[in-house]
Every structure is written in C-alpha cells, then in structure tokens.
C-alpha cells in the first residue's frame, strides 16, 4: 500500500507522466463533474423541500456551502503543495500551487457574495464583521495575494518559493475559518454538515447538498488539471517531449 502511494507520488512528480495521466483522466473527469454538479443543483434548487422558517431563500446553501468548502479545501491543498515545493523542491508541486489558486479565489468570492445575499433576508444585514465572515474575507485576500505574488516575480521557481510560504502560513487562517463559529461568538451559525455524528439537516435537503459539493469539487479538480497542463507545457517548452508533442502532425 505505502509502496504504491510512493510510486504514484514519484510518477506524478514527473511532468511527462503527469501530462499523459491527465490526458487520460480529463476527458472523463470534466463531463462527470458537470453532470454531478447539474444533478445536485437542479435537485437542490428545484426539487428539495422548502425550509420551515426561511422558505425558498435557504436554497442558496446549495451554492454557498459547496463553494465555501471548495475554497477551504483548495487552500489546504495549496498549503500541502507549498510544503512539498519548499522542502523537496518538486516541480510538479510548484505547478499545482499555481494551478490551484484562481478557481479557489473564485469560490471564496462566490461564498462571500452568496452569503451576503442570504444574510440580508435571513439576518437582516448583508455584512457584519464577525469572525467567520472576516476570516473568509482574509482567505479571499490570501488567494489573491498568492496569484499576485506569482505574477509579480518573473522567475517561476523564485515565484513558487514565495507563494509556497504564503500558502503554508495561510493554512492557519483556514483553521480559524473552520472553528471561528465554535470558539467565538459569531452571527454565522455552526456547521450543519458534520463528518462525525448526525448532520442537523433533513435527509431530503442533505443529499442534493452532498451531490452539489461532490460535483463542484470534481469540477475544481478538472480545472486544476487543465491549468496544471498548460503550466507544465509552458515550463517544459524546451524539453524534447514537449517539442515532439507540439510538432506532431
């Protein structure tokens, strides 16, 4: 088991192998993610029952929660990629770090906007400087900072090193986002979905939510693969295998 994981790790660390692997996976991953996301959203937005107090406005959960969880997980993945890039100087980790940022930033922004739109009818306000909302805003700024750092430094390896540090340090903020609603008094409610124990959402509402989350995560993964492929081609443009690939009739 450990050996298999290790072999995978080393194989995917090679740009050529990654390019071939992603060529095989992507034609499946992208359509599947879109179908799963469409099923989850249609089920949640059109067929799931209304909520007893919020009526239909609760349905924004089917966009808000998948987007927020995607933004948080994407950031954790960037932190791991940053650690691997800093310590092992692995090129593919640098590529992944760069590929993860844009979609994650979009998801963080979607989370903030949908949260505000839901907050107005539910809470009576678009925005409060409570710990959950403020730390989520910081997460968006961290994403933007990483994108900015990478475009500000011309040498890709130097850029990756700077971005790796920011990505790793920013993981502390992810912990704050996650636990702010438990440790501090906030306007935002606690987590509805629980990994351990029973979730406090009715099953008829929970399943479309889980499917939407899965769909969005898969779409994020597909987007990362696509971005990483472009980045690999760009970085390896002088390598023999890329030349062969490009000159192929």
């Amino acid at each position, binding site marked *: 088991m450990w050996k298999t994981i290790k072999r995978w790790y080393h194989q995917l660390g090679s740009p050529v192998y990654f390019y071939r692997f992603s060529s095989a996976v992507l034609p499946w991953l992208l359509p599947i993610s879109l179908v799963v996301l469409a099923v989850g959203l249609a089920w949640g937005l059109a067929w799931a029952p209304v909520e007893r107090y*919020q009526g239909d406005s609760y349905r924004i959960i089917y966009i808000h929660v998948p987007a927020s969880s995607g933004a948080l997980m994407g950031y954790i993945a960037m932190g791991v990629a940053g650690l691997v890039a800093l310590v092992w100087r692995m090129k593919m980790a640098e590529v992944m770090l760069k590929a993860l940022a844009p979609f994650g930033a979009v998801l963080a922004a979607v989370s903030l906007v949908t949260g505000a739109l839901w907050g107005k009818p539910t809470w009576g306000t678009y925005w409060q400087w409570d710990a959950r909302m403020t730390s989520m805003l910081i997460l968006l700024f961290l994403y933007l900072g990483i994108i900015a750092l990478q475009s500000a430094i011309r040498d890709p390896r130097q850029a990756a090193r700077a971005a790796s540090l920011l990505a790793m340090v920013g993981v502390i903020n992810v912990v704050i986002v996650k636990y702010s609603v438990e440790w501090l008094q906030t306007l935002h409610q606690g987590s509805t979905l629980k990994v351990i124990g029973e979730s406090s959402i009715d099953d008829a509402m929970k399943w479309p939510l889980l499917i939407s989350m899965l769909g969005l995560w898969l779409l994020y993964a597909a987007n990362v693969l696509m971005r990483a492929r472009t980045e690999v081609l760009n970085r390896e443009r002088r390598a023999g295998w890329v030349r062969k690939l490009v000159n192929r009739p």
Partner: protein
Amino acid sequence: MNPVRKQRLILVLAILAGLAVAVGLAVYALRQNINLFYTPQQVVSGEAPVDTKMRVGGLVVDGSVRRNPETLDVTFAVTDGKGTFDIHYRGILPDLFREGQGIVANGTLISRDRFEAEEVLAKHDETYMPPEVQDALEKAGHPGGAGKAGSGSDDSEGYSRGYSESYSSDRPAD
C-alpha cells in the same frame, strides 16, 4: 531522508508551529474584541460595559415580546439560560424574528437589565428542516415538539428548545 531536506522540513515546520502559536495567542487575547456580541450572562454579571455602543446576543424569551400597537416600539427579553435582560427597539424586525429565536442586537446598554437597540439581527441556527418534518416530529411527540398539544402556540416553541439545548451545550460559558 536526505539531510538537507530534513533540515528544511524541520525549519519550515518550526516556523509554521511558531506562527500558529502566535496567531492562537493573539486570537485568544483579543477574543473579547473578536466575539461579535456579549452574552446575557456577561451583561447581567457586569462584564459588559454600560453606556457604550456594543452588540448583545441571546434567545428571545417565550412570551416576552410586547409591542406598542400605536408605534413600532417593541420590548422583549433575551436569555442564555444564565441571565436575562430586556431589549427595547423601535423599527422593523427581521422576518426570522420570533420568540425562541436567537438574535443579535446592536445598541447601548442603559442599565444592567435594559438594552436600547438600534438594529436587531436574527441569528439562524444550523438546523434545516422542511415544514412537514417539523409537523411530523411534533405529532410523534419528539422532545423538540413535545408539550405543544396543550399550549396551542405556533411552532416557535419546539425551535427554541432545540436551539437553547444546542446553545448551552455548544457554548459553555467561558
């Protein structure tokens, strides 16, 4: 592991651990400023300052909402099970405002048991339930809906119990 990498790994992890501790201490030290609101317990015990602009939060006590039929004035009591005080507000309350609901009010504490609100926000809890399920739970005599038959009130009572249970168990007084 290659010694150079090992050294780098230890260095990076040490920096991270140091930063995490620093941030943790900062959040802990500033938590009174980061917390969005004071709890009723803090208001009653004198921890919350009088005559200062601030936010308070708690559950609206069942049967405590008194409206002036002539104006928009409304007075209600909030509690967290450890303290209770009155909030006075003039204005339009959010749709989710009801007895048993968690709220956050922005305003000034006039005395230990009276708060003058300029803004009242409803706090939603993490429970999502369709109306039919709520009815079924009440018919089946679930704790969330028990005692409903005699009282004849609306469904807010079951909600408040579920909420205050989670409120007190999730957030022990610190």
